């Protein structure tokens, strides 16, 4: 996941519109957003919940014996 994020940051410099005005404005707005960590949490929160469910399901006790 971290590799994907790193690649996305690098790829921005090789895309068709790496330095066009809207691209620069968007990146500046994201960097200057005082609530960007809240936004990141909002996006990630459901996945944190389901990851906990996955962990619980994985550790569920044996339910039956071999037939």
């Amino acid at each position, binding site marked *: *996941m971290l590799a*994907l*994020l790193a690649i*996305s940051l690098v790829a921005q410099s090789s895309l068709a519109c790496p330095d066009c005005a*809207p*691209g620069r*404005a*968007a990146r500046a*707005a*994201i960097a200057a957003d005082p609530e960007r960590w809240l*936004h*990141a949490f*909002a*996006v*990630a*929160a*459901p*996945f944190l*919940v*389901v*990851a906990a*469910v*996955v*962990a619980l*399901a*994985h*550790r*569920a*006790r*044996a*339910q*039956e*014996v*071999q*037939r």
Partner: protein
Amino acid sequence: MKPLHDGPLIAAGIALGVGLGGFVDGILLHQLLQWHNMLSSWLPPTDLVTMKINMMWDGLFHVLTWTMTVLGLVLLWRAGRRLDVPWRGMTLVGGLALGAGLFNFVEGLIDHQILGIHHVHPGAHQLAWDLGFLASGLFGIGLGLALVRAARRP
């Protein structure tokens, strides 16, 4: 008599269901239909700059769905190598339904209702669309639980 442990296969199914369900949401609702983006209620994509900002946050969303999918594949591989995990298709499909349903319900509850960062179909009948999305999640969870339980019956 050895105890069987279907938890790892269910967990794999849930992770895959979350990832694949998330991709359906992202590809169908965000990109093809363009009904909403991740932050489209907080920052409506009314021009190219705000659209690009939303697209970045959509990208983060897809990073997470991709990660869940990879996690599911790893868990599935590991479950398949265990002798104490019964290799049942119904268990895996049940897990997939559980995961997809769980994603819809949890994401709908947190992102649509509690945080309000976006809604399924903003505008007319917005609440009905959001409630329908939650209902689809509950349906998936119910179906998944039923399939997992059915797979355990002798």
